[in-house]
């Protein structure tokens, strides 16, 4: 059945019919027709944020927790530009987000109209695809295509810019229309087989299914021959829910497993083959294992610089098998012996079937000998490790933790015992301070039955703490923890190690967080002693609404060990330098 609808109505209908049930946004002049139509769609819950950046992070958090597309909406100009950090965050971490922005009417585009900005141009490098919709007849197809592109292959953000007059234009709309190839509009139909020089493609091996099997066979052969093999798993394992396949591969071969920052929770801590996180703040034994390995099987990770340190010195004895959905990642950062382009779950399943059973007992024993006692990084009794232990006890481990960026992020990554898949959510690639609080709102909406803790430092928390108001208004019972050390701690740590201890602009004042909580009408606590800790965390966890707990921790605590930026994984800093470098 067809009916005449406005562009704004089509936007709402298309989202509802695609199964979208929540959107995060902020109204404004150029998006008002959409907000007017929204009133007729009660199935589309709208969360009114306090800043559009939070809408993008919340949509991102929703997407990561649910595996479905997260949707955010903003007006033109400043509304659209405020989304940019959130979209860049989603792009770096392969999160499926669709952003809808209002734009000035078509006749005004290019004339520097009020609240006009070239959001298409601005988001070109941080989106998978973006659209300026110039004809209302294309709108429904564009929405369907955008939702599909955001999710298919390696996920990522897509932006749809809709001029205000297109939102008001009417056209025929057919319910649940585009069941055709969602990429048809982008890829065209008649030209799909055209190529410049058929058969001469220089693209990496493993691109076709036949080559995947060759790659799997070769990888299995390398695994059989290796004496010191490692599995390194990243976000791709979580995106494709390849948990049982990875576990089967590890257990069949006895290969120890390393999880990158975004791979945390993809393999259960406590498993005898679990090693931990590698890289800049990885445990010494993990990095030493990498440096001694003769084979690394990387699944769904990018071998980024925080993982590898200086690539010239990374895993000098190892051949690398790299499995990734994105062929552009194969060989981008480290040379690979075997590159396999494919879905982590499918390729790992085939690899687990192909490998011969084996064990790695001698290698595991060698790695155990790499273990060092953890350096005494904390003075006083309110150590991050103790705080996280109280959190684990209060929640029984049944919560999702969303972290911000900085020292607390590394402490949580290293010290919290994740045992359930996809329960650790953080901004990895872009390292976006201010991510945790708004992203946690999206995580809650994706998992309403589960407790969600947003853990931030005092710097990152103050970037987006205005979202407490959103939580109160929208009844989102997110639990917020602030690790307050009075510094932008990670930057201060770098200043201590590499800039002669000149703490330039890193001391940061905080408001009274208990009074702040009170002002928002939510309970707040300040914890200074471990003796108070367990009771407060339990109370906050059990409170039915949002709650805020400030942990006053040692001011100059450091994250150890640390590989200096650009340094080799073989050279960790494990204590404060006796004589600080720099000026």
């Amino acid at each position, binding site marked *: 059945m067809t009916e005449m609808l406005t562009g704004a109505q089509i936007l709402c209908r298309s989202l509802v019919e695609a199964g979208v049930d929540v959107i995060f946004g902020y109204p404004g002049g150029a998006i008002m027709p959409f907000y007017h139509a929204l009133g007729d769609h009660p199935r589309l819950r709208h969360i009114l944020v306090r800043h559009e950046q939070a809408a993008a992070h919340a949509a991102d958090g929703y997407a990561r927790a649910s595996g479905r597309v997260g949707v955010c909406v903003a007006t033109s100009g400043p509304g659209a530009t405020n989304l940019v950090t959130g979209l860049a965050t989603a792009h770096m971490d392969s999160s499926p987000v669709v952003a809808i922005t209002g734009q000035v009417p078509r006749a005004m585009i290019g004339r520097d109209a009020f609240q006009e900005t070239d959001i298409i141009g601005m988001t070109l490098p941080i989106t*998978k695809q973006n659209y300026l919709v110039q004809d209302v007849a294309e709108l429904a197809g564009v929405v369907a295509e955008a939702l599909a592109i955001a999710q298919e292959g390696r996920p990522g953000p897509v932006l749809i810019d809709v001029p205000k007059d297109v939102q008001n234009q009417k056209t025929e709309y057919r319910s649940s229309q585009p069941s055709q190839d969602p990429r048809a509009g982008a890829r065209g139909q008649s030209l799909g087989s055209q190529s*410049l020089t058929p058969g001469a493609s*220089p*693209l990496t091996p493993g691109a076709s299914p036949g080559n995947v099997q060759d790659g799997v066979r070769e990888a299995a052969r390398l695994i059989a021959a290796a004496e010191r093999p490692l599995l390194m798993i990243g976000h791709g394992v979580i995106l494709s829910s390849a948990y049982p396949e990875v576990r089967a591969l590890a257990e069949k071969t006895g290969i120890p497993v390393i999880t990158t920052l975004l791979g945390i929770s993809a393999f259960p801590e406590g498993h005898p083959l679990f090693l931990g996180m590698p890289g800049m703040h990885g445990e010494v034994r993990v990095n030493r294992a990498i440096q001694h390995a003769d084979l690394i099987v990387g699944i769904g990770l990018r071998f980024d610089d925080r993982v590898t340190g200086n690539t010239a010195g990374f895993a000098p004895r190892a051949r690398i098998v790299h499995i990734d959905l994105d062929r*552009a990642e194969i*060989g981008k950062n480290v040379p690979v012996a075997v590159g396999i382009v494919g879905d982590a779950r499918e390729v790992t399943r085939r690899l687990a079937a192909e490998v011969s059973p084996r064990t790695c007992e001698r290698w595991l024993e060698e790695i155990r000998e790499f273990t060092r006692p953890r350096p005494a990084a904390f003075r006083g009794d309110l150590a991050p490790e103790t705080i996280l232990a109280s959190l684990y006890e209060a929640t029984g481990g049944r919560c999702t933790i969303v972290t911000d960026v900085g020292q607390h992020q590394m402490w949580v990554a290293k010290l919290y015992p994740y045992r359930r898949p996809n329960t650790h959510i953080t901004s990895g690639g872009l390292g976006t301070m201010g991510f945790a609080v708004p992203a946690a709102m999206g995580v809650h909406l994706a998992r309403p039955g589960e407790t969600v803790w947003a853990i931030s430092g005092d710097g990152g928390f103050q970037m987006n703490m205005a979202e407490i108001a959103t939580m109160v208004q929208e009844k989102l019972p997110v639990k917020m923890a602030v690790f307050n050390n009075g510094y932008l701690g990670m930057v201060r740590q770098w200043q201590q190690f590499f800039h002669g201890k000149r703490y330039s602009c890193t001391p940061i004042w905080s408001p009274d967080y208990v009074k702040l909580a009170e002002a928002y009408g939510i309970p707040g606590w300040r914890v200074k002693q471990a003796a108070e800790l367990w009771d407060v965390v339990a109370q906050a966890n059990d409170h039915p609404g949002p709650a805020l707990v400030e942990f006053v921790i040692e001011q100059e605590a450091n994250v150890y060990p640390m590989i200096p930026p650009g340094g080799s994984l073989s050279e960790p800093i494990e204590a404060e330098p006796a004589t600080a470098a720099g000026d």
Partner: protein
Amino acid sequence: MPASHNVAVLLEDGLLTLNRAVGVLRRRNVPIECLALKPSGTAGVSELTFVLKTDAATAGRVVQQIHKIIGVRDVVLVATEDSTTEVQS
């Protein structure tokens, strides 16, 4: 070793796709020697050609990144010319 790599891209007509393809060169910080756009002979499709002055691995990565762009139908490294004999000033 820097060399000249000729790359040809078949892409759908439209400024956005062209902008994305050229944007990859800027985003990935790759120097170009020349760049040209012409009709491909097929309606709706243009051929973008450019010459990169870089090492083979970087040229390969650029090809991979451009290949991912929606609206790009094909991309190939057409030829590589070794530039080691160029006069050094």
